[in-house]
């Protein structure tokens, strides 16, 4: 094993279960085309709520993705996670024969912002509707934030470092950074990412307290950051898991290196203090560039946080300008699928990797007439030579996070 200083964390596989596609290919096709899939909420028991539009994952059959027992034993957010992890591991060609040979070299890190809300609501209903003896044994392991990490680790036999960031949105990038650091410290592979399932009735009622939430009922108008019509964000479910691997290990086994997790930094500027997030975000970007050994002008594209709250949009546009200037192309494909809390920036990271590979910046669906000094890619995808991408995320509880991804030519080391 090589020393920590020489170890570099790279992405070798990506698995996506998103509102616009339950595979990396379908996700990318819809993302590149700028197809928006936000729609009225249809999940049972949610129709009457003042939160009308969301990004639902409709093209996903859990019974086809995971063993039958998990349908009873785990929540929807864990179904997404197990399915996405399978897709990522398959793409990375990391089958059981490889991982069983060195189980302590493979770990799991997820970010979880809301846990198994639907499962929890069902068990609360049993308890309060019928009595404590009607609470099932799986409540103890399905609702809590650690469920997805634990289930992936057990189902795939991974005994490496396992972690859970119970973060806000920015936690998704923090989970990827956790994974990168674990790889640099000596673990060969970490399966990392985030999936969320916050679209159950009680979970949605809980979210109504966020002032930043969009209650607009027209799906094409509900989430339009960086415009004068910005009226908040639209929540979503789904997410992505990535295989983060030591570059040397990956190349030894002939895996395709998709991108390097080159730099990350996180800061905190307070819940809903959006004006202050300008400095927090700028500080995080500088930290991430510094860790990546990257100059600001090397950033070829920014995947923005794009909250959709005027004050927050202004702060983000200014933070980007503060560090990178106003010429760098910026995009926010999440306007087409919604913000899946911790999962949102992980999907952005996937989109960034694919954008670099295809030389195309995907557009920002539903967004026109920008009211900030920002080169936001709207309408159609834009062709560009992309070597380095920056992903930004801010959370409703006040975290700011920045991740630098670099393209790696095949064969380079």
């Amino acid at each position, binding site marked *: 094993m090589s020393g920590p200083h020489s170890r570099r964390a790279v992405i070798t596989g990506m698995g996506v279960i998103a509102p616009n596609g339950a595979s990396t290919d379908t996700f990318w096709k819809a993302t590149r085309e700028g197809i928006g899939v936000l729609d009225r909420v249809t999940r049972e028991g949610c129709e009457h709520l003042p939160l009308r539009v969301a990004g639902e994952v409709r093209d996903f059959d859990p019974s086809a993705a995971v063993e039958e*027992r*998990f*349908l*009873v*034993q785990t929540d929807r957010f864990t179904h997404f996670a197990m399915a996405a992890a399978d897709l990522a591991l398959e793409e990375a060609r990391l089958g059981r024969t490889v991982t069983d040979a060195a189980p302590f070299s493979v770990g799991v890190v997820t970010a979880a912002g809301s846990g198994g809300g639907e499962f929890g609501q069902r068990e609360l209903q049993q308890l309060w509707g019928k009595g404590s003896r009607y609470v*099932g*044994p*799986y409540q103890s392991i399905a609702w809590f934030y650690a469920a997805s990490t634990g289930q992936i680790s057990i189902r795939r036999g991974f005994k490496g470092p396992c972690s859970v960031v119970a973060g806000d949105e920015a936690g998704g990038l923090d989970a990827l950074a956790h994974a990168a650091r674990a790889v640099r410290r000596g673990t060969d592979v970490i399966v990392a990412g985030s999936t969320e399932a916050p679209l159950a009735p009680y979970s949605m009622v809980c979210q109504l307290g966020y002032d930043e939430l969009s209650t607009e009922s027209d799906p094409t108008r509900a989430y339009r950051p960086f415009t004068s019509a910005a009226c908040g964000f639209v929540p979503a479910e789904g997410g992505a898991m990535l295989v983060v691997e030591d570059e040397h290990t990956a190349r030894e086994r002939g895996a395709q290196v998709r991108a390097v997790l080159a730099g990350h930094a996180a800061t905190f500027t307070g819940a809903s203090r959006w004006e202050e997030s300008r400095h927090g975000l700028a500080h995080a970007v500088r930290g991430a560039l510094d860790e990546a050994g990257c100059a600001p002008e090397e950033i070829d594209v920014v995947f923005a946080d794009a909250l959709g709250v005027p004050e927050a949009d202004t702060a983000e546009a200014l933070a980007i300008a503060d560090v990178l200037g106003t010429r760098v192309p910026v995009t926010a494909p999440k306007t087409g699928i919604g913000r899946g809390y911790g999962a949102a920036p992980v999907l952005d990271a996937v989109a960034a990797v694919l954008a670099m590979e295809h030389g195309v910046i995907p557009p920002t669906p539903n967004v026109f007439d920008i009211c900030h000094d920002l080169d936001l890619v709207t309408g159609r995808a834009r062709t560009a030579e992309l070597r380095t991408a920056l992903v930004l995320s801010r959370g409703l509880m006040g975290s700011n996070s920045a991740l630098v991804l670099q393209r790696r030519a095949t064969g380079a080391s």
Partner: protein
Amino acid sequence: MTDRITVEELAELMKKSAGVTVAPAELRANDPGFDSLGVDSLGLLGIVGELENRYGTPMPPDAERSKTPRQFLELVNSALMTGA
């Protein structure tokens, strides 16, 4: 309500409480281990809990440690027969 739990009822409970589908005929013919069926310790606790709620009577403590459906049925049915 019957005072004897059948293989059919156990199969239904395995599906409901542990998410494991298995044909009653298979349980009857081969008596496969709960382990090999994918019913873990929590699944078995769920089945016991469900039975206790249905029949309004506690099941013997050993029931949740049964290794096979046949062993399980013998234990719970002897408890029900004695009218515990």
